[in-house]
């Protein structure tokens, strides 16, 4: 640690959805920090729990979901805080009220850019009006000034003719343009932290490049911190300082970008990096990760990645590795959740039998088949 408190600290955060099929452990005890001025990445496949984690930080989880444990602290305030008391999980007294989170935190301190640009704008109000309203609320500006700010911000994110477009409705904007509007909303509120949930997925590569440049500019200008959610390792390499790799609700590796790419400590990260398209490879040479991620309702025993892990051994089926410090890092240690790091986990990985391919494939089929594989 460098002596000062982090801007945001997430500890052992757990969010579950109580559905008819069972309890979805979408976020299952993740811990990470964001320092002032830092861009922290969260990467992982679809369904890993990235969006749920992002929403949990701002307490935006709705029925049938619920935050069931852990802690989120932002600049000394407790956004989420649970404690075990009399055998029951309770909200701590220092946890901010709903009203306080709404008034003091949302938009003003922490803004979020949602993943889906097509559904995130209200179809019956003008784009400019929606942007203006958020500026009014979060910067205490009168309507006319908020309007000017809104137009400026639309121009800044690359909407042509922003004065004219201000009064257009969302359906008159393309997906990419709507995405820019969502980005403008976050930037315009001048928060200290922006949670960006795959904000460039809907954009083509050139536009994505422009937006990433813009974010870097702003980050230098205002020192805004970002949590950048993506499944694209290329984007991570381009803008992030540190990265969290998520798999089935857990963080399986956490390191600076350099360490993650060059000192990879987890087989899942290695697989993700391996599946990344590189300029020197043709499409045939790509190595997609085998299989699909199982459901978060009944996660695999032991290490959740073992049904797909090329290095899995018997011990991985039974022992669940936590995300522990396995090497030094620049400021924070390099963490990984893999039993191969025998010196930290001491589970007897190297003496254990490797899982043979047939067995692993079978387990994977069982886990990913419809209805939990009971029919096999």
């Amino acid at each position: 640690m460098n002596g000062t408190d982090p801007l945001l600290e997430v500890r052992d955060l757990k969010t579950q959805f109580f559905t008819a099929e069972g309890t979805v452990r979408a976020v299952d005890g993740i811990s990470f920090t964001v320092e002032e001025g830092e861009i922290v990445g969260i990467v992982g496949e679809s369904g890993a729990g990235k969006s749920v984690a992002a929403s949990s930080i701002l307490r935006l989880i709705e029925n049938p979901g619920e935050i069931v444990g852990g802690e989120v602290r932002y600049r000394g305030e407790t956004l989420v805080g649970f404690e075990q008391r009399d055998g029951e999980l309770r909200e701590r007294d220092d946890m901010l009220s709903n009203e306080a989170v709404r008034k003091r935190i949302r938009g003003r301190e922490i803004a979020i850019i949602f993943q889906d640009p097509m559904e995130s704008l209200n179809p019956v109000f003008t784009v400019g009006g929606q942007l203006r309203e958020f500026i009014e609320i979060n910067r205490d500006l009168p309507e006319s000034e908020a309007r000017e700010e809104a137009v400026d911000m639309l121009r800044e994110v690359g909407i042509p003719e922003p004065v004219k477009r201000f009064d257009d409705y969302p359906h008159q904007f393309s997906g990419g343009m709507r995405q820019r509007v969502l980005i403008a909303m976050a930037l315009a509120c001048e928060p200290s932290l922006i949670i960006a949930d795959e904000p460039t997925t809907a954009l083509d590569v050139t536009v994505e490049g422009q937006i990433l440049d813009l974010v870097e500019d702003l980050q230098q200008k205002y020192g805004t911190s970002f949590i950048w959610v993506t499944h694209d390792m290329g984007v991570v390499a381009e803008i992030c300082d540190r990265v969290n790799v998520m798999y089935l609700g857990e963080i399986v590796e956490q390191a600076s970008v350099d360490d993650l790419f060059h000192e990879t400590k987890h087989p899942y990260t290695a697989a993700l990096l391996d599946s990344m398209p590189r300029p020197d490879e043709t499409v045939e040479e790509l190595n997609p990760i085998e299989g699909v991620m199982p459901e978060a309702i009944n996660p695999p025993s032991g290490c959740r990645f073992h049904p797909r892990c090329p290095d899995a051994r018997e011990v991985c089926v039974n022992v669940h590795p936590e995300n522990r410090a396995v090497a030094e890092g620049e400021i924070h240690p390099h963490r990984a959740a893999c039993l191969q790091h025998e010196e930290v986990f001491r589970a007897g990985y190297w003496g254990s039998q490797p899982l043979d391919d047939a067995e692993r494939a079978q387990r994977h089929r069982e886990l990913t088949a419809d209805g939990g594989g009971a029919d096999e």
Partner: protein
Amino acid sequence: MLRYTVRRLLQAIPVLLGIVTITFLLTDAIPGDPVSIMLGPSPNAEQAAAIRAKYGLDRPLYVRYLNYVADVVQGDLGHSLYYGVPVTQKIAERMPVTLLLLVSSFTFAILTAVPLGVISAKRRNQPTDHVSRVVALIGVSTPSFWIGLLLIIVFSFHLNLLPATNLIMPWADPVNVDGAGSRLDVLVMAGEHLLMPTITLGTLQMAAITRIERSAMLEVLSEEYVKLARAYGVPEGTILRKHAFRNAQLPVITVVGLQLTAALGGAVLTETVFSINGMGRLIITAINNQDYELVMGTTLFFGLTFVIGVILTDLSYAYIDPRVTYGERE
């Protein structure tokens, strides 16, 4: 929006023509002959022929049809055989009564149902919600004439609080209203007369609108853009009133529009139960007496009301949802 309105109105013309045609053909197909009604069961052949000639009934169907359409276009709906006055005069006399009844029951329904539905959605699965849902369920499943009879028995016969028959127009001249000395008396009496028919006709609408309002609000409240508004600190009250409410009214408008048609049928029953001389009773009298031009005239009126209802639905839709008028802008 203006162009859309004009286009919508123009589109109504063929629909109205269709209604005229169908009404004409249906009336023609009704068994029984107006001549036999006027002259009794075994008419003198010469008299019958004379009457046929007088009303043009001896001419071929298409000639009569074209004549009828030409008359209707000029605002002439023919002559009521039973009342002995022009059909338009009879309609002009009865229409305000039915319109008053419709307007007052829809006002009652909307003013109660919309807040009830919104509160229900906001307090989902809490006691308020349960109560309002049970009330709505009872409302949609109780026949309106039964509600009317019950109200009459309780409030007119037992409690003697409200009049059981007739309506008084609030704009009627005090001189023509029994027991009224001033404008205020007329208004009070009009209100007293209107209360029970309004509840009778409006309960079904209220219940149906409450249900759709609740489910529409619930659906909109789970939309991504509502989540976005929450994420930016918009107060819950503003979300309910502004961000969610407007979107949620789209399905509500559709239901209100459909209910308007149902309410026309309900008006016939309500007018019968409360002995109100409106369009509903007029059409029944017309049918019972095979007063075929009056039947056509009143049917046309109901058709017209329906078309106006549809147009109003579409226009309010376009007013709320900018995507509707979009097609013509680009």
